[in-house]
């Protein structure tokens, strides 16, 4: 089977050369005849078929435990259940690269299929570029990280994967991100296609917009899944550690935010054209760099990996090639893409979009500096504390920009109208100022309540400002939605309900955008609580039923422990009632566990969490000494549920914006 894999891979490379040549020849002819392109379009299906076959061969290797595949030996083992074995397809870099190329060729084939009736010129160029990218990746796969290497010893039982990674969120997290990465290639291809054709219309944006939204949606879900996994499995109480690999996934996401907003203005206002072009390139570049960071073996991180010179050489070449050719194309056509609507006022929605983009690029730049600094500056590195100190004020300022943005129009802002619109959010902030102040005081007290020895938070007023801005944002976005629906009711004399339904149906893009931005405001509130005011304490108790641990306003009552032994692991399970200190009422049950994995000789802790709306109580069993005394860490994470709830709103909003809708209104406004 492993030989078949190699044969298919070679066939795919040859096919990709053929497809690329086919496109180049047909596009080179003097007159563009759509019918000439039918055959190259169809050849893309063949390429997709071959890459699918290669992927299936590898998958078959996992399903049948075929240890002739070196890759199967290293990433799977016979005692894993079939779903985990299949997911091992994307467990190492060889397989994940193949999987990524498979997605890319699939998306290319779908794009070719949906445009095969018209075979328009832009799409033909974009498809040509996409086939070139596939060829490049395939060649790289074959030379540098071939998944079809024969196991030299022809013997093995499979090394399996790390027990921590056997979690549903971790199984679907990589493919979700890969869908996003592959999807982000399409706006890049269209941008280059438009530049090559000197096409300044919005057509390329129209074609690429939905793909970008789709890709960005999957990036968001992927990042969210990674955070959830880190929170419930890794046991350090947080969900984002500014680890280089986590940061890598954020790069294309930030690029995507800037790109989607640029696309929006490009379509609506025929401006931001330079932004749209450069952000298309930037986002794709971020995908490549993200792959470079996670798979290139350059940067030390939690996710350790090997250094591989071929891989590094390949990535550096690709990155330089993309930058150089894009700079050439954009600079030689700079005047052509001048905006039709320029900024006329410094206080308008355009300006807010402009600064949003600058923030996104700045954020990505910081992460890039953080990722590559250790290579160039004598081992100097940026730690999580620095990222936090930059991200916290920026996040709050960004939310303020988003909130104002919801209330002002493009072009010029009528100040009296603006003042009227500001009344509600400003009023809300004034009303909420005192209750939020008290809440903020309680957050400050929490840290020393939980652990009297801990130093109080150094956040100062930032947390309070963050909470106020979040309240402002929530109200501003809600007001913006209400205004839109009210206008609709007036214009078409509809009732409230039909106006809401109609609004979501015809202007799902804008409606989805509002929901996503509402989610952003909720996320910021959650981040304030769960990054600035997390409290923790460590306590040791003997293994005696009825022992209690009192922390702040709650109490843990020990109910006993249980050992479970299986062939591969020993699990030590403790259980507790969680009580309210004042009333003695039981508010939850938890069972933090410690697991010893016999085959790997490692111990992992399985945390347990009491989820409350305003905070999580997070309990880790850290150690057990010779006498049986158990050491626990108890953490209180305020407002963390807001992070999850806001993220879900962000994802839902994006889905609503993506949802296909009837093109009834001429101005089909996107989010």
């Amino acid at each position, binding site marked *: 089977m492993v030989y078949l894999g190699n044969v298919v891979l070679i066939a795919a490379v040859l096919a990709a050369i053929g497809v690329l040549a086919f496109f180049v020849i047909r596009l080179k002819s003097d007159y563009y005849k759509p019918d000439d392109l039918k055959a190259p379009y169809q050849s893309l299906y063949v390429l997709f078929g071959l890459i699918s076959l290669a992927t299936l061969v590898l998958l078959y290797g996992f399903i049948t435990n075929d240890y002739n595949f070196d890759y199967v030996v290293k990433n799977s083992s016979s005692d894993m259940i079939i779903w985990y074995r299949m997911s091992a397809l994307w467990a190492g870099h060889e397989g994940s690269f193949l999987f990524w190329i498979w997605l890319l060729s699939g998306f290319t084939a779908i794009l070719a299929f949906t445009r095969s009736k018209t075979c328009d010129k832009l799409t033909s160029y974009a498809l040509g570029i996409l086939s070139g990218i596939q060829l490049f990746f395939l060649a790289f796969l074959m030379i540098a990280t071939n998944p079809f290497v024969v196991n030299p010893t022809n013997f093995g039982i499979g090394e399996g994967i790390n027990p921590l990674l056997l979690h549903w969120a971790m199984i679907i997290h990589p493919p979700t991100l890969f869908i996003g990465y592959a999807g982000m290639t399409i706006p890049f291809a269209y941008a280059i296609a438009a530049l090559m054709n000197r096409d300044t219309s919005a057509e390329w944006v129209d074609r690429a917009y939905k793909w970008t939204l789709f890709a960005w949606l999957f990036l968001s879900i992927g990042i969210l899944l990674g955070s959830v996994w880190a929170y419930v499995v890794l*046991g*350090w*109480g947080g969900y984002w550690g500014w680890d280089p690999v986590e940061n890598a996934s954020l790069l294309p996401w930030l690029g995507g935010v800037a790109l989607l907003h640029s696309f929006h203005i490009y379509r609506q206002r025929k401006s931001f054209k330079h932004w749209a072009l450069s952000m298309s390139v930037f986002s794709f570049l971020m995908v490549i760099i993200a792959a470079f960071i996670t798979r290139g073996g350059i940067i030390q991180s939690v*996710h350790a*990996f090997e250094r591989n010179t071929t891989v590094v050489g390949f990535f550096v070449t690709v990155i330089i090639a993309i930058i150089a050719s894009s700079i050439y194309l954009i600079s030689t056509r700079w005047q052509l893409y001048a905006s039709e609507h320029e900024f006329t006022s410094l206080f308008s929605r355009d300006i807010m979009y402009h600064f949003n983009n600058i923030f996104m690029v700045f954020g990505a730049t910081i992460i890039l500096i953080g990722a590559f600094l250790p290579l160039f500056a004598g081992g*100097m590195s940026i*730690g999580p504390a620095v990222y936090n100190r930059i991200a916290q004020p*920026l996040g709050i300022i960004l939310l303020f920009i988003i909130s104002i943005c919801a209330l002002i129009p493009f072009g010029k802002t009528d100040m009296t109208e603006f003042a009227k619109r500001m009344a509600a959010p400003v009023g809300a902030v004034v009303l909420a100022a005192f209750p939020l102040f008290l809440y903020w005081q309680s957050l400050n007290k929490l840290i020393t309540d939980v652990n009297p020895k801990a130093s109080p938070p150094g956040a100062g007023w930032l947390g309070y400002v963050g909470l106020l801005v979040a309240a402002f944002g929530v109200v501003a976005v809600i007001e913006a939605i209400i205004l839109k629906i009210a206008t609709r009711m007036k214009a078409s004399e509809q009732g409230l309900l039909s106006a809401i339904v109609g609004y979501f149906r015809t202007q799902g893009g804008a409606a989805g955008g509002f929901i996503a931005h509402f989610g952003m405001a909720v996320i910021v509130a959650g981040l304030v609580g769960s990054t600035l005011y997390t409290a923790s304490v460590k306590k040791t108790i003997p293994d005696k039923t009825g022992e209690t641990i009192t922390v702040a306003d709650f109490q843990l009552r020990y109910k006993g422990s249980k050992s479970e032994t299986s062939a591969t692991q020993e699990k030590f399970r403790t259980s507790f009632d969680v009580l309210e200190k004042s009333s003695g009422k039981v508010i939850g049950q938890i069972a933090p566990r410690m697991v010893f994995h016999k085959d790997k000789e490692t111990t992992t802790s399985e945390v347990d969490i009491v989820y409350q709306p305003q905070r999580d109580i997070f309990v880790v069993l850290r150690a057990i000494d010779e006498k049986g005394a158990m050491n626990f860490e108890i953490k209180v994470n305020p407002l963390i549920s807001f992070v999850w709830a806001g993220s879900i709103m962000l994802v839902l909003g994006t889905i609503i914006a993506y949802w296909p809708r009837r093109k009834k209104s001429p101005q089909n406004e996107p989010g």
Partner: protein
Amino acid sequence: MEARSRNRLIIVTGIVLVLLAVLLWRSSTGSLSYFKTVTELKAEKGLIGKTVKVGGEVVKGSVKRREDGVDFTISDKKSTIKISYDGTIPSTFGEGIQVIADGKYDKEDLVKADSLVTKCPSKYKSEKIETK
């Protein structure tokens, strides 16, 4: 398009960029750490008292868990150094595991770490998973 509004935009953008650079500068001064191997670290006495990041393998038999942390020794096969860490121990921590400790290079033979990451014996590097 008016040249005046364009100029104004460029100026405002410039100011914002400067502010962002100041934010970056203020947040990072004194907080950057030096990423070193154990041998490199021990060769640079000048780093004592500074924030450093050091990576290596946890030496077998050196782990002593305390009430609020853990003490252990790491090695890069040439030299060793003691690490004293206060904080939550990652669930993957253990003997023979690759770790990166972040903290103050306190004395010649001691790093007081306030952050500890285990190099995730992740899928990405299956070769390093011990299966013997």
